[in-house]
């Protein structure tokens, strides 16, 4: 019975988890803005969320078509590395670094706002459930 109360929160919890993954990924890109040869990465959020919540098959996974094959899970907290894309450089750099600071800062701010939005969704859901329980 209790899991009916919490099941609805699961989706938001997964989203929150992925948001924090993405936040870390963008922080890594910003940290490596001056590292020669570093290639910026970003997450395909919609695909990662679909994968984490079990809707839709994970893309670009190795097929295990023969008995001896090893399945590649490569999972990070429900998300998979296969949802990470390489950023296309907008301006090429002599040291082959593809971090575009403007884009990273924008993504970072965007992800911050969306993380807070997810937090509010969860908080409001908890409040709704509480008010339904107290019945006032």
């Amino acid at each position: 019975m209790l899991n009916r109360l919490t099941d609805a929160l699961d989706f938001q919890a997964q989203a929150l988890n992925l948001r924090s993954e993405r936040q870390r990924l963008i922080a890594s890109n910003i940290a490596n803005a001056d590292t020669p040869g570093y290639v910026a990465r970003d997450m395909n959020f919609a695909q990662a969320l679909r994968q984490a919540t079990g809707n839709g098959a994970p893309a670009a996974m190795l097929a295990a078509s023969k008995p001896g094959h090893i399945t590649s899970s490569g999972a990070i907290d429900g998300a998979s590395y296969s949802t990470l894309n390489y950023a296309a450089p907008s301006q090429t750099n002599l040291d082959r670094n593809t971090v575009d600071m403007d884009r990273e800062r924008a993504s970072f701010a965007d992800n911050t706002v969306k993380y807070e939005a997810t937090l509010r969704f969860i908080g409001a859901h908890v409040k709704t459930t509480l008010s339904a329980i107290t019945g006032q």
Partner: protein
Amino acid sequence: MSMMNIFNVSGSAASAQSQRLNVVASNLANADTVAGPDGSAYKARQVTFQTQLMGANSNDPTSAGVRVSTISEDQTPGRRVHDPKHPSADADGYVTYSNVNAVEEMVNMISASRSYQNNVEVMNTAKGLILKTLQLGQ
């Protein structure tokens, strides 16, 4: 808590950038030093950054920190000035100064300080988010 790793990532970057700033400071401080008795003047130094994966999982690309891999010396010959009256002048009357390019160093300094600021801001934002997460449901 996966967000906690942001402090490791941005912290390593801030530390690497401050090391770069340190090297710039020593270069600028030695911009006008002349060759000592051994005949070789100060050589400008340059840091090289390298990615260091910091996740719990060793091939996790989502937490990539930075470390200083090497500090290399600029091997271009130093500036030579004809000044026979200078106490450090050689037999031909030339004084060898260090090969520090002050303009290059200033650009390097501004770049390092901007990157440092970026990382501090990232840490501040992450801290705010974590605090808000802790207040969830209150």
